[in-house]
C-alpha cells in the first residue's frame, strides 16, 4: 500500500533511474525484504500511467534499464497529502483473533487455551524484538518498538477478552 507513495517520495527528492531507486528504497525501507524488480517496475509503470511520474528518455549504451523517472506536480501533491494525513487506524490482527475466539466458542473448543497459546506466542515474538533492540541501532530499535506496541495492544485485547469469555459465549449463542 505504501510502496508507490514511498517511491514517489524518493523521486520527489531527486529524479532517479529504476535501479538506483530500488537501491535507495532497499537501504532505507526494506529491512530484510528487498523490493522485487518486478514490483518496482510495475509500480513505476502504474505511476506513469496515472500521471504521477514521467519517464525521461532512455539513455543509450548504459545497461539494460536507463530510464529516468521524474515526479510530476500531481505526484508531489499525492506525497504531500500522504505525509500530512494520519493512516486510517485499520484493524490488524484482532479480526483474526476475534474470529478464532468466536469460532472456538461456537464449536465448543477451549477458547481460554487458544488465547493462552496466542499470548505465549505474542510474548515470544516480543522476546525476539526485545533481544533485537539490545544490539540494534536507533532506526531498528524504533521499528521494533512499533511492533512491540502493536503486540502489546493485542495482548491487552486478549486479556480483556479472557475476562469476558463467558459473556461473549452467551452473546454469540455458544
Amino acid at each position, binding site marked *: *500500500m505504501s510502496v508507490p507513495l514511498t517511491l514517489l517520495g524518493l523521486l520527489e527528492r531527486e529524479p532517479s533511474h529504476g535501479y538506483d531507486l530500488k537501491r535507495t528504497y532497499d537501504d532505507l525501507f526494506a529491512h530484510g525484504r528487498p523490493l522485487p524488480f518486478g514490483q518496482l517496475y510495475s509500480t513505476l509503470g502504474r505511476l506513469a500511467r496515472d500521471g504521477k511520474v514521467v519517464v525521461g528518455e532512455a539513455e543509450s549504451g548504459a545497461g539494460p534499464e536507463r530510464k529516468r523517472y521524474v515526479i510530476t506536480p500531481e505526484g508531489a501533491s499525492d506525497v504531500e497529502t500522504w505525509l500530512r494525513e494520519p493512516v486510517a487506524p485499520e484493524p490488524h490482527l484482532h479480526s483474526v483473533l476475534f474470529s478464532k475466539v468466536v469460532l472456538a466458542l461456537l464449536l465448543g473448543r477451549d477458547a*481460554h487455551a487458544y488465547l*493462552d497459546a496466542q*499470548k*505465549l506466542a505474542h510474548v515470544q*515474538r516480543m522476546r525476539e*524484538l526485545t533481544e533485537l533492540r539490545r544490539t540494534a541501532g536507533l532506526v531498528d530499535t524504533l521499528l521494533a518498538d512499533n511492533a512491540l506496541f502493536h503486540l*502489546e495492544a493485542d*495482548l491487552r485485547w486478549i486479556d480483556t477478552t479472557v475476562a469476558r469469555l463467558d459473556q461473549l459465549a452467551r452473546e454469540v449463542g455458544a
Partner: protein
Amino acid sequence: MTTAPVLEAVGLSLSFGATPALRGADLTVARGELLAIMGPSGSGKTTLLHCLAGILVPDEGEVRFHGSRIDSLDETARSALRRDRFGFVFQFGQLVPELSTLENVALPLLLAGCSRTRALDAARPWFERLGIGGLEDRRSGELSGGQAQRVALARGLVAQPDVLFADEPTGALDSLTGEHVMDLLTLAAREQGTTVVLVTHEARVAAYADRLVLVRDGRVTSPTSAPAPVPTSPAGEP
C-alpha cells in the same frame, strides 16, 4: 536450560480465609533461568511467588529449593533462607528511608553478619555497575523512581543470591526507565548466574524473560516447556 531445577512447586493450594488464591499450582524453575509469571489481578501470581520464596506457606503441596522442601521449615529457618539465598525487588523499591542508599544496598550483607566495612565495600561497586554512581550518600527520598529501583536491584543482588524474586519491578516506572531497569536486571542476573522469578502484568517486561508461564484462577495454565514458534512476519504490520 536442562539443569536440575532450582525451585519446584507441586500442587500448591492456599486460601486466605474463604478465598482460594492457589488451587493446585505446579511450577519448575531451572537454575539460571529468567522466568516471568503473568496473570490477571487476583489470579494468584504474587501468592505463587511468595510461596516459592518461603514468605508464605501453602495449605497443601510442596515447595522444593534445590530438591529440599522449604514449606515444612519453621519461620526462623525460612527467614534465614530468604536472607541467605534469595534476593527481592518489589514494585516500590521499599528502601529504608533512614539509611543512605549505600547502606540500603549493603543491608542484606549486614543482616547476614558481614562486618560493616566489608558490606559497604561489597555494595559500592554496584553503584557504577547500575549507573547510579555518586548517589551513595543520598537518602531514598532524594532519588527518582528509576534511581530508587536500581538501588533496590543492587540490594537484591549484592549478596549473590541463588534466586532473585522480583514482583512488578517496573510497575511504578515509566516505560523507558522500566526498560533500562530490566536491561540492568537481566544483565546483572546473567553475569552472576542468578535465577530470576519475575511477576509482572506487563508483556514488555515479560519479554525480557527466557520463559513465560501464565497463572489463572490459582493454577499455572500454560505449559512449562518453551512456546511454539510463531510466524516471522513483523507483528502489527498492516
